[in-house]
């Protein structure tokens, strides 16, 4: 297992854990950005350059900024997010069970014993032509979904303002 992968896997997991555990919401979004960046580097190490840079653009550039906006817009509420639910023990049991099942099945599956394949060479040109030919219909559906979702988001966020006027 390469050293770089180990380092960035640890960075990713530490960022994700900090994002969940930190009290201050702004700090936890910063930790989330660290986790997203670590995951982007892991994608690059796996040879998926396009997905790695899409991860940086979409998650760090858009989703994290959106979350910061939402935190600032709901600032008067519980900014520290300090309250932890009363059922955290049950949640811990559920999470530990899910992780145990996942790790057990990964350990026992046949895919984990195969030999490492050589790194596939994919250029952005190949990805573009695949998107335009083989995956043209899913691309159009995704475009429609994004348009509908963004119009819906604007409608939901605007509605209460109109009623208040």
């Amino acid at each position, binding site marked *: 297992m390469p050293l770089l992968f180990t380092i960035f896997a640890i960075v990713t997991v530490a960022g994700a854990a900090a994002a969940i555990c930190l009290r201050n919401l702004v700090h936890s979004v910063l930790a989330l950005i660290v986790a997203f960046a670590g995951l982007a580097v892991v994608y690059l190490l796996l040879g998926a350059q396009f997905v790695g840079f899409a991860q940086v653009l979409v*998650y760090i550039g858009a989703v994290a900024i959106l*979350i910061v906006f939402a935190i600032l817009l709901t600032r008067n509420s519980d900014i520290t997010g300090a309250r932890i*639910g009363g059922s955290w023990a049950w949640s811990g049991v559920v999470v530990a069970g899910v992780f145990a099942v996942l790790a057990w099945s990964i350990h026992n599956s046949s895919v984990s014993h195969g030999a490492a394949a050589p790194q596939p060479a994919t250029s952005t040109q190949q990805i573009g032509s695949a998107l335009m030919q083989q995956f043209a219909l899913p691309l159009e559906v995704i475009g429609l979904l994004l348009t509908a979702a963004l119009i819906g988001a604007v409608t939901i966020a605007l509605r209460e303002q109109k009623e208040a006027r």
Partner: protein
Amino acid sequence: MTPLTACLLLSALLFAIGLAGALVRRNSILVLIGIELMLNAANLNFIAFWRYGPNPEALTGMMFAVFSIAVAAAEAAVGLALIISLYRHLKSANIDEVNSMSG
């Protein structure tokens, strides 16, 4: 440990952390952060199986990850709009206080 196993274990760990965040924390924005982490874990699985799978030239795993990222972006936009709308309505971002359908 093969590289595929390492990727899958990292993905399982990320999924467990995201699930813990979605279940334990009561602030709705942190619940959304947990859901984003779980989606990222699924994306990492797609990329890992694309990289170490039998037929990486077909690009299907990578395409699935790209489409999954687009769907996650739409989900984040709608989720945050819902959170802002709920906050305007209830003056709170705590999901325990969202307990009625009619407001």
